[in-house]
């Protein structure tokens, strides 16, 4: 299903809803906080929606998935207006982790439990990278689509989490999930969670940002062609997304939407003061019970914890038709999404329009349809941050980059391709000192063949030439330094892509 053919009719964006689809609780072996705690923090940090995604596994499929539902119901009552979804962090057979969640309904626990029982890589001992396990992952996506078709659930989504972290998600697997059912497998995390992990040892964990500290040769299931730099974050973002002309762009260059997100992966929050109660805090307790008791206050801030609360640092902002569960899911699917760190910006609007004004403009995630030779321009409107972020400073947006890529709907010959040779940064704006609403316009000129556009911006404290060279990306994000990556000093936002389809 190409973004171009037939052209996507844009859903009218009625509101922008910030959220997080990767949050752990007491129902994860490595978690501790209650659902109410995570949901309360999410709300405090300005999130409109949140997905509870505890790890799939033998305890969760038996206990956690069931107990989660009434806890979410109670949290919805306590926090009216918050959209709280039930999901799971799926161990993708043969691959990494993925968020799977459903639109709330009477049968969501039943569907999620069956999904985990039949398709979770830990529950099914299907984590090795074999053709059979790849097929199981594909079958899982197909099954989720069937649950929607048969109306057992109103909607379901899968977003692959921290995809490059251990090199476990090969390009052809990603393409396979997408092609099996593009309504269900809609994207991956552009930035992982664990964003406090790179704080220096003097104040924090002193580790690799995002806990991306692996290398080639440490997991036998890794896709071997991924280069060494794929195993690190870049300005806090995953290499697949951060690399202009990289894997994300190679998917967009097929004329297919693929949404990126940014989430907390919140397990254990930097400087948190509540933890599992003593004596009921180890894995043997979790294995026996299926969960930990909710965290209790112990008065000791923990500086070795590498996560943030949902919304405290990372946000996935979805353009939705209205404030509802279904609309959030639809917006994620459509790619009407931008993400940021440190609340770098407060609003973003991307329009791609025909200069002749003879076609409906494309908004974020949608497609402009023009005749060959039409003059096209891009207009980006950004509301600069007015409030301090949770680190205590009003963030400064110092540079915005426009990235444009050519589209070839035939797709690559090699389904393991992870570069898009015709994507590059075409324009950069120095926005230092800007305040209020800024409007940036770029004329693409005559468009004769399909393309896509996307934007990113930064506080520009750190940059280096992109992995594919200066002609592609002269001022890209810096490869993060373990123990020296203060997340508050390296802020980025990314938009998803809008497309231009050309008729002859």
């Amino acid at each position: 299903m190409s973004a171009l053919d037939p052209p996507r009719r844009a859903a009218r964006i009625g509101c922008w809803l910030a959220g997080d689809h990767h949050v752990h609780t007491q129902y994860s072996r490595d978690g501790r906080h209650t659902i109410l705690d995570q949901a309360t923090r999410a709300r405090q940090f300005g999130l409109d929606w949140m997905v509870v995604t505890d790890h799939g596994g033998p305890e969760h499929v038996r206990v956690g998935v069931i107990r989660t539902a009434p806890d979410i119901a109670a949290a919805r009552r306590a926090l009216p207006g918050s959209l709280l979804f039930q999901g799971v962090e799926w161990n993708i057979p043969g691959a990494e982790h993925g968020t799977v969640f459903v639109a709330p309904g009477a049968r969501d626990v039943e569907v999620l439990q069956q999904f985990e029982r039949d398709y979770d890589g830990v529950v099914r001992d299907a984590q090795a990278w074999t053709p059979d396990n790849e097929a199981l992952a594909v079958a899982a996506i197909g099954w989720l689509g069937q649950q929607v078709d048969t109306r057992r659930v109103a909607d379901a989504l899968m977003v692959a989490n921290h995809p490059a972290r251990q090199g476990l998600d090969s390009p052809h697997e990603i393409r396979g999930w997408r092609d099996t059912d593009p309504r269900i497998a809609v994207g991956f995390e552009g930035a992982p969670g664990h964003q406090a992990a790179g704080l220096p040892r003097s104040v924090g964990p002193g580790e690799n940002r995002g806990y991306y500290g692996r290398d080639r040769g440490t997991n036998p299931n890794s896709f071997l062609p991924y280069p060494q730099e794929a195993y690190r974050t870049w300005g806090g973002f995953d290499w697949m997304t951060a690399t202009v002309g990289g894997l994300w762009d190679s998917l967009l260059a097929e004329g297919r939407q693929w949404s990126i997100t940014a989430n907390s992966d919140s397990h254990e929050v930097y400087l948190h003061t509540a933890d599992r109660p003593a004596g009921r805090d180890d894995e043997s307790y979790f294995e026996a019970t299926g969960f930990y008791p909710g965290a209790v206050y112990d008065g000791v801030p923990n500086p070795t914890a590498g996560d943030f609360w949902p919304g405290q640092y990372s946000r996935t902002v979805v353009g939705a038709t209205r404030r509802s569960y279904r609309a959030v899911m639809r917006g994620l699917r459509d790619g009407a999404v931008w993400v940021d760190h440190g609340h770098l910006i407060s609003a973003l609007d991307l329009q791609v329009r025909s200069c002749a004004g003879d076609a409906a403009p494309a908004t974020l995630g949608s497609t402009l349809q023009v005749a060959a030779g039409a003059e096209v321009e891009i207009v980006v409107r950004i509301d600069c941050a007015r409030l301090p972020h949770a680190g205590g400073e009003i963030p400064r947006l110092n540079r915005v980059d426009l990235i444009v890529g050519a589209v070839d709907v035939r797709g690559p010959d090699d389904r393991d391709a992870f570069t898009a040779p015709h994507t590059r940064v075409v324009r950069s704006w120095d926005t230092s000192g800007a305040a209020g609403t800024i409007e940036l316009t770029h004329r693409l000129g005559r468009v004769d063949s399909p393309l896509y556009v996307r934007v990113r911006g930064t506080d520009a404290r750190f940059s280096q030439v992109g992995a594919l060279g200066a002609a592609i990306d002269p001022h890209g994000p810096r490869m993060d330094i373990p123990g020296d990556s203060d997340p508050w000093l390296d802020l980025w936002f990314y938009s998803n892509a809008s497309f231009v389809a050309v008729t002859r």
Partner: protein
Amino acid sequence: MGVDLGPSQDAAASPDDLAHAVAEVVSHCEPADHMANAVIATHTRQVGIPHFVVSVVWPAATAGPDPATLIRGLVAEIGNALPATSGIVITWPGGPDPATAGDRSAVVGAWTAVTRAAAGDSGRIAVFPGEQRLRGVMSVAEVVAASGIDRVADVSGSVLDDSVLIDTMGFVRPRWRAHRMVLQIQRGPDGLAIPFEREHMLR
């Protein structure tokens, strides 16, 4: 030589676990001065269930085993210290024909280790001469002098100057590149380089 422990290999075993397990077994068969020269690496084999195979190399002109003695010693370990499903291949450049032992399909895997080690262009080295001396902050020159590491390179592949300081963090795992033992580093805090691969990184 190459070793493939076969399907009974623990899927959760780290490459260090496997390399040290093989080192332990070989040390039953070989004297300490031979073991001191051994370079033990793991290589990824993605046939069947992906797993690591282990190579053990004695660089030319160092004291090493007699292949006939070694294979006899290792055959005795199969089913004891080595899983019964293991396969072993020993080759000796310019020497006698390769010796093989053990499960036939694991022998194929062991050949992978041998050929990768012979090609010298990939493999994660876990055991090597001087590894124990690489502790604390050392210059590139000191690292090269103290161990079998030939050079230190950054992510772009550039070789570092002798004077660059590395915080070894007590965890140094070089790679085979073009028949050289190369330690890959990245920038770390306080202006020091650190090994690219970090210990305790599974999350």
